[in-house]
């Protein structure tokens, strides 16, 4: 039995909790506000899409949660603890595949198992074959069966991106951070990967934060969409998406879906029209 302290119990419902967070870059003279004061709570098992034009701070939020960027003001909590000290298993996929060029695809995908507890403790021992099978299954799932021995440069961009998704998922993350991972792919690959991603979310229910500028992608995948605006970056709209699962690509032609993406689009366009001066 694990005993929770009252504060942990209170926070345990939220996987991500941004408390009045602000991020600025630059010195006193030419300060740029990447993210104006923002509070955001994301519950267990939510699939949240952050959409908005470039420069609206959506990637900034993801970096705060990933722990690769520190907030100028405010607090970032992940799984009830200060970011970096949390116990959540985090998986992240980036806009670029960011595979390590000196490792073949199998070893690239296996990397999180080498780093993240509890997997790392079994890494040098007999479980290595077990991990190998795990990687093969994961690769097969995204259509890369048999490519484990190849090196990243021998694969097309789309295939590298698939491998990078495998790497983000191999350690069964409870929190999945996706920074436009489908952005550079052709439409058919993208839709195929959406479907895989949805399947995976239904099966394992990780908490997902997806950064994207594709409204269709957001509406197809997410349970909740936050629309963001630039200069300074902030959340201007936060709405639930309640289409039944599993969703298919056909859903994107239905009137409800179209009107949702229309509404989001108008929200972004309207926000762009009233641009405020740089603070």
């Amino acid at each position, binding site marked *: 039995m694990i005993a929770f302290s009252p504060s942990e119990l209170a926070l345990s419902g939220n996987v991500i909790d941004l408390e009045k967070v602000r991020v600025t870059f630059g010195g006193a003279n030419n300060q740029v506000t990447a993210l104006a004061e923002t509070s955001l709570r994301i519950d267990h098992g939510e699939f949240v899409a952050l959409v908005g034009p470039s420069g609206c701070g959506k990637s900034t939020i993801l970096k705060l949660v990933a*722990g690769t960027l520190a907030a100028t003001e405010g607090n970032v909590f992940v799984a009830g603890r200060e970011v970096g000290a949390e116990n959540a298993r985090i998986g*992240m996929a*980036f806009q670029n595949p960011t595979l*390590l060029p000196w490792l*073949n695809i199998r070893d690239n995908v296996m*990397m999180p198992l080498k*780093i993240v507890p509890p997997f790392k403790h079994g890494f040098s021992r007999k479980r290595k074959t077990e991990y190998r099978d795990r990687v093969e299954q994961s690769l097969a799932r995204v259509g890369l069966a048999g490519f484990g*021995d190849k*090196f990243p440069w021998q694969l097309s961009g789309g295939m590298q991106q698939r491998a990078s998704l495998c790497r983000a998922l191999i350690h069964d993350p409870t929190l999945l951070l996706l920074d436009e991972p489908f952005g550079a792919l052709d439409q058919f690959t993208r839709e195929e990967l959406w479907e895989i991603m949805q399947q995976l979310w239904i099966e394992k229910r990780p908490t997902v934060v997806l950064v994207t500028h594709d409204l269709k992608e957001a509406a197809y995948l997410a349970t909740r969409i936050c629309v963001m605006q630039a200069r300074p970056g902030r959340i201007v709209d936060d709405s639930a998406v309640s289409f039944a699962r599993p969703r298919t690509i056909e859903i994107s032609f239905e009137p409800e879906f179209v009107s949702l993406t229309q509404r989001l689009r108008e929200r972004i366009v309207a926000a762009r029209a009233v641009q405020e001066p740089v603070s």
Partner: protein
Amino acid sequence: MTENTRRRLLSIVCILGFFVAWEILCFIFNVSDIVLPRPSQILMTLWTRFPAIWPHALQTLYTTLLGFALGIVIGILLGMLIGSSRLAYDVAYPLLVGFSSIPKVAVVPIFVLWFGAGTVPAVLTAMIMCIFPIVVNVATGLAATEPELRDVMRTLRASKWEILWNIGLPRTMPYFFASLKVAATLAFVGTVISETVASNRGIGNLMMIASSSFDVPLVFAGLFILAALGVALYAIFSLIEGRVTGWAVRSDNFSAGG
């Protein structure tokens, strides 16, 4: 015959051609062997006086390899320190550049003063000759590591040590091996400088004595030995480099060999 073997054959023919031309020109212009001995004379000297040359060659090889090994260890450690800390970079870089600008022949007497003549100053001279390129390249390689690759590890909550081991060092390998090839040849230079100045063994010493008695073929025999040792060491590290850092040049051999 494949493209590769043809290329290799051509290069061998050209290299041999160089020595043949040397031989023929010396013969035509009747160059005295006190000025420039013919390759055939040098090879003859190597053959006939091999028992006398051999211990010197071994001494030089042993000294150089020892100095080289020490240089690699210290070079990597310093490079890692400089490459991962801003303060260390600011402090150590000017010192290193200043130190490497000093002619090494000027340092040998100091080593002799401290450690006496013989093997120790030669090892140390070889070592300081090869530290600089290794440090600079290891530091550059670490500093050039793409931040995105580091971010991948940071989101996995990898420790600093894990990031260095899994990202920094592998990323640095191409730089490191490039520096090793330079350092390997520089180490021979260091050893021979020291042997020439203060030792009674080694190829450097052998050449000193030979030139003072105008035994020019023997001097050239010493040069040939040094060149051969240098080429051999270079070739060994090229081979290792190909196996370890083939990913950097996207070599198909690398992917096939794993």
